[in-house]
């Protein structure tokens, strides 16, 4: 016996009531519960839909779906970070390594040429903070719009918004502006600082401009319901 459309909707509501907010996670759980319920109803036609659902849910253990959600979030963050690492490595291979070295050299030259170093460090940290925050704000607006239009939230989108957990690193940017403010920097120190700031900018650039759009494209290909707005 196949479940009806309203029963499937009931299962979506059930997962939502059990703290599964994300449509992509709900979908898999709904199908799993539905399969289990259908098998039970075939074996015992006198069973009600609600009792069969209760029995299937119990199989997830005392903490219900929490483990599945928690592990899914971890897995997606890991996937995001692996993608960033994959593209990051490209910047250390030919031909992109030339660009990386050029950025380091360029930043270093500016750092030693400008008399007041605080201007260079201040402007870089300001840009490294404001650009990602602006992009994240635009993304959150898009997610809100999708939620309003379709009543669906996607874990994929949330992972992109958090830059796979890398969003925490923006705290470092605030610190950069005040970093070693009054000390005199040697050339070796300025060069190390240039390397660090270029690598950090590259990681953020890859996350925001390469990995997040790629995830959305992959999601659109994978999930027929995903609104690629």
């Amino acid at each position, binding site marked *: 016996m196949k*479940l009806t459309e309203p029963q499937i909707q009931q299962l979506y509501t059930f997962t939502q009531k059990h703290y599964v907010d994300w449509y992509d996670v709900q*979908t898999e759980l709904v199908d*799993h519960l539905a*399969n289990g319920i259908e098998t039970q109803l075939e074996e015992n036609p006198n069973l009600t839909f609600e009792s069969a659902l209760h029995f299937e849910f119990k199989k*997830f*253990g005392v903490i219900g779906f929490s483990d*599945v959600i928690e*592990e*899914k979030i971890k897995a997606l963050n890991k996937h995001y970070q692996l993608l960033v690492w994959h593209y990051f490595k490209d910047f250390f291979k030919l031909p992109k390594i030339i660009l990386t070295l050029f950025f380091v050299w360029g930043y270093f030259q500016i750092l030693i040429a400008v008399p007041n170093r605080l201007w260079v460090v201040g402007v870089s940290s300001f840009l490294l903070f404001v650009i990602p925050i602006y992009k994240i704000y635009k993304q959150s607006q898009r997610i809100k719009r999708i939620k309003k239009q379709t009543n669906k939230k996607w874990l994929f989108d949330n992972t992109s918004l958090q830059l796979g957990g890398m969003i925490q690193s923006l705290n470092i940017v605030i610190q950069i502006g005040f970093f070693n403010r009054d000390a005199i920097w040697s050339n070796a120190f300025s060069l190390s600082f240039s390397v660090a700031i270029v690598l950090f900018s590259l990681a953020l650039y890859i996350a925001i401009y390469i990995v997040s759009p790629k995830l959305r494209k992959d999601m659109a290909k994978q999930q*027929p319901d995903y609104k690629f707005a």
Partner: protein
Amino acid sequence: MSNSKLYKGSLNTIILQLLNQHDKMYGYEITQKVKALTKGELNITEGALYPALHKLEAEGLLDVEVAKVDNRLRKYYKLTETGTKETVNKLEELAEYIRTMQALVNPKLA
């Protein structure tokens, strides 16, 4: 699972091998297949299966396809090229493990 601690370390290998033998499978199907193949001896819990599937997907070993079946969406998993290679490695590791255990618990058979 009849003895979850013993099977736990092999869950990924079990999933990979099943997907190696079938073109694509969905979560519930995997649990039922394992149950049928082991005549009910091994019962993969839902709380262990999905985290394992999501982890394998994140590592790039599995690919995902979502299709409408009956009146709902179904998420299918299939092996990627890397996943197929990894299955071979994992099976070799498991065979080696079984041989070692055999040598330890029953030296006559080893």
